[in-house]
């Protein structure tokens, strides 16, 4: 596990996700009440990018089948997904977003 700089904090919008890659692995960044969170970009149900989904408060809705996840924890809130997505630790240094993976 190590920290990877993936974006500038200012690049992470308030109401949609930002997909970044760490060693080819897609991670979705979201901003909730000013804080930035990182979860796996791939929905646990189908081949969908969660960063392309709809952000509603602290929740992200998958664009393909409306599965809903808690952005802060990766926990699945409603199906059809049944498995959580992984969530990652995030820190901000000098305006840059670092994700631990």
């Amino acid at each position: 596990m190590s920290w990877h700089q993936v974006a500038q904090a200012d690049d992470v919008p308030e109401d949609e996700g930002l997909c970044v890659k760490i060693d080819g692995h897609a991670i979705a960044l979201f901003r909730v009440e000013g804080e930035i969170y990182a979860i796996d970009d791939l929905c646990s149900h189908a081949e969908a990018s969660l960063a392309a989904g709809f952000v509603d408060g602290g929740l992200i809705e998958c664009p393909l089948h409306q599965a809903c996840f808690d952005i802060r924890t990766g926990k699945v809130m409603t199906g059809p997904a049944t498995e959580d997505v992984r969530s990652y630790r995030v820190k901000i240094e000098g305006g840059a977003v670092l994700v631990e993976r």
Partner: protein
Amino acid sequence: MARAFDILIVGAGQAARRAAEGARAVAPEASIAIVGEETHPPYDRPPLSKEILLGKADASLCCKRDAASFAADRIELILGTRVAALHLDDREIETASGERIGYGKLIIATGSRARSLPAPAAIADKVLTLRTIDDAARVAAHLHEGAHIVVIGAGFIGLEAASAARARGARVTVLEAADRVLGRVFPIEAAARVERLHRDAGVDLRLGAKLDEIAPDGGRVRVSVGAEKLLADLVVVGIGIIPNTELARAAGLAVDDGVVVSAEGATSHADVFAAGEVTRHPVRGASAMRIESWQVAELQADAAGRSAAGAPTAYDAIPYFWSDQYGVNMQMFGLIRPDGAILVRAAGESALIFSIGADGRIAGAIGFNAGADMSIAKRMIGAPAPVGLEDAATPLRKLLRAGATA
């Protein structure tokens, strides 16, 4: 003395699983059992006509829980057991072998069965419906390069089977008696898009095709349509499903197409609830409906399970449905109003098709690769259609916000 459970669920599909989970969530101590004819533990059906036929996944993708997981939650599975009768006055059900099982509350979750076509015994293994894990395995075994698959019925199941068969290199002919696909569900503007998808993928889609005969022909199946004879390696029959309401009807429960229930899943008898797509339940913005969808099997069943276990819970979700064909994602929210207007908002391969009621409000939305806009469209259901809705250059989110502040 017959065995008995606080909550007994008849039927062993997705709705049974979800009703049991709902009941367990509010009644940690209740004894709960699922009794049904299926030999597999309850599973979800959406992948059967998609990932399973495509060969991308095995049946485990359908199984949200295995037998051990049910046992850990103290949900008893009584499988391979057909229920023959409900004795409501005795609070007992009777199985085909004559065993009686008692209950405190009964949940009917008998689902539906595929409508079939009669076929001679010699080709019974080549004329298949697609409803169960075993059906999907049988159909998938025929999908390979060079095979000719004839699909009868251009509903979602038939069209998803066609999509999977093409992806696996089979030649596909779809026969539909009506003059369009998806006649029960999609307005013509959306159906035409689906038709184009299939024709672009090389499907021989025949509308207005009247099936005359299915007969054996040298190890294959001869499908006669008028003067033409099609030779098929497999015929997939996708001509709809029939709700399994016989037990409820015989027991004297109110049945109107589906088992009639309240928003809480209560039937006309105080001890009996019903869950999933066998139900005719209240729907926002409409009279009651029977809806064949994953959502109903999941969320209406959850509410019915909670209600049966003593925590009345209403189901009031906006109807939702999805399909995936040729890598194109289709989703539908709400209802399509035949008496209203259709508004198309399209940009390239992505499109949203709105149904606007006579009152000017958005009744439903169908998306093709619409992505996050689908989530926004859901939030617009029931609201007045905003000016400029058909203009794909105006972000939908902006229109949603404008509507919220209007």
